[in-house]
């Protein structure tokens, strides 16, 4: 026994981060047991809720209301077809997709060079600029809502997908610049220096050395923008007025509000919810680890 105790720290080191080190393994209290049980319960309920929501989207409203716990009898896409045609979700999905991809690509394309400059040149100006960009992180959307509406209205960019894209790009600058600055700082300088010694211009170093190295961070920044632009609601609700310009969240709100008059169409509504949630699930399953790292470490300090 005593021998085991002496070796305990050693074995713990050897096991590295995997598993639990023996020094910590001793405590198995009741409270902990309950905590672990509760956590697994939360996990089970979360997954069940997601599966349940998708399942309801394939049942018609009457069946859903009669027995909300039921499972679909057959794979019936009727709800989706109705939401797609009656609820204007088709054009809204297209608008959302276009806006999300376009504004996210442009956001990253514009923020990356800026972040690169701020991370590589260190003087009073860049420190001031970094602070200036960080300021925007604390300004909630409702502050700029009304002035933005007035400004865009003057140049005929309200109720316009172009206007919305511009707004999304501007509003995303602080976070993206902040995240990418931190990311570029973490890249090794040696390769850039080597390239510079070989006579590459400063722009060439950025384009041919740093950008390829930074692929991971740039992809993370891009995906984070995709998520936030796909889900953005308040600005879209304010700036878009005609149905054929609506993005998915706005279409969903208007669908909910129509039901006050036309009776609840829960089948169609669930189909709409699935359309909002599913793309996020796909991205999460595909790139999940990158996202959690980007969100937790990027916002880490």
């Amino acid at each position, binding site marked *: 026994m005593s021998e085991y105790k002496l070796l305990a720290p050693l074995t713990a080191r050897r096991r590295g981060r995997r598993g639990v080190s023996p020094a910590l393994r001793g405590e198995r209290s009741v409270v902990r047991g309950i*905590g672990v049980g509760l956590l697994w319960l939360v996990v089970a309920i979360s997954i069940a809720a997601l599966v349940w929501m998708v399942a309801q989207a394939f049942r018609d409203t009457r069946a859903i209301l009669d027995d909300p716990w039921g499972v679909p009898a057959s794979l019936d896409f009727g709800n989706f077809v109705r939401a797609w045609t009656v609820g204007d979700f088709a054009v809204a999905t297209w608008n959302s997709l276009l806006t999300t991809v376009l504004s996210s690509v442009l956001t990253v394309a514009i923020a990356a060079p800026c972040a690169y400059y701020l991370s590589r040149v260190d003087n009073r100006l860049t420190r001031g600029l970094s602070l200036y960009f960080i300021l925007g992180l*604390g300004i909630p959307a409702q502050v700029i809502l009304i002035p933005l509406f007035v400004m865009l209205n003057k140049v005929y960019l309200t109720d316009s997908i172009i206007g919305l894209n511009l707004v999304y790009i501007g509003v995303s600058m602080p976070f993206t610049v902040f995240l990418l600055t931190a990311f570029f700082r973490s890249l090794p300088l040696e390769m850039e220096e080597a390239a510079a010694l070989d006579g590459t211009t400063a722009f060439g170093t950025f384009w041919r050395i740093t950008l390829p190295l930074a692929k991971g961070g740039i992809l993370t920044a891009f995906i984070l923008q995709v998520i936030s632009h796909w889900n953005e609601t308040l600005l879209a609700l304010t700036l878009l007025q005609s149905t054929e310009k609506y993005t998915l969240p706005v279409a969903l709100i208007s669908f909910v509000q129509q039901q006050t008059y036309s009776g609840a169409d829960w089948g169609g509504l669930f189909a709409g919810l699935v359309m*909002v949630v599913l793309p996020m699930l796909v991205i999460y399953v595909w790139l999940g680890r990158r996202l959690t790292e980007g969100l937790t470490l990027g916002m880490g300090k």
Partner: protein
Amino acid sequence: MSVGLKEPRAGKAALHNPDSRKPVTRKASAQGRQPGSSIDVQRKKLLVPFVGPAFVLYTVLFIVPALGAVWISLHKWAGSGPMKFVGLDNYGRIFRDPLFLSSFGNTLLLLFVVGAAIFILAFAMTLVLRDMAGKKVVRNVIFFPHLINALVFGVLAGFIFNPGGMVNSLLAPLGVTDPPKWLAQDNIFPLIMVTLVCTTTGYFTTILMAGVDRIPPYYYEDCALAGASAFQRLRYVILPLTWDVFGTCAVLWTISSVKIFEIVWVFGGSSGAGVPPTQSWTAAVYTYVNAFSGQSTPAYGAATASAVLSLALISVLVVLLRRAMRRDAVEF
């Protein structure tokens, strides 16, 4: 307790650095280089093409509107027609408006009550998760709600809590024959608060876990050798070493809670003429309704005044939080 926490406290420089430790040394080496090195000179010329577009877009679409908001809040204006300068009258007016006071009160409830609940739960979950089997699975699942539009939760809550809905059908076998009217106007806001706690805790748990995972395992081993109890370990190791992450989380929640809008807007599903019951308004909803609902003359002045006050609330709290959290950060 012989836990090795004698490291020097982090200086200001380390705290202000957005990235953890590595860049400090790198920056030092960058400064140590000859100032006239040709790549540096070349790089400096890239200021306008590289920073320019981001700077212009951000300034025009974010900073100018934010300043514009302050300007508009000093005027009486219905969106079109002349602006009348009224000084701080709008602020005085909204403070006499019971609707604004209750909306702002709701925002404060979200900020402090929901915030406290989220933090206690997230921290408890972090402690349990720290060394449990399958922690990655759990973490991945509880993080996902953060990626879902809050609208979805609002709509689903309307379905789950409606009179013939799932909650009541669950309660019926338990002998609750007369369940509360969940979606009555007075009950909606507490329900929103509960929903927010359920859907946001996972995100903050993930962030706290990133902080707790950073603690090197030998501190725990030292604890075990010194015979520290679980509480002592929490008090003297985990809390001091994750204090800065707590600070970050508090700042994040302050900023995001003041923005809460979507979930209030649709909570309970089709609740009426498009505007949620006044009892559940937040400051963000107050701003939107006063400017864009189309139900009365738009009062841009009062609406922006409310938004500017939200911004002031955030600024004050963030400054206070940074002050409060600064002292206790421990470098390890």
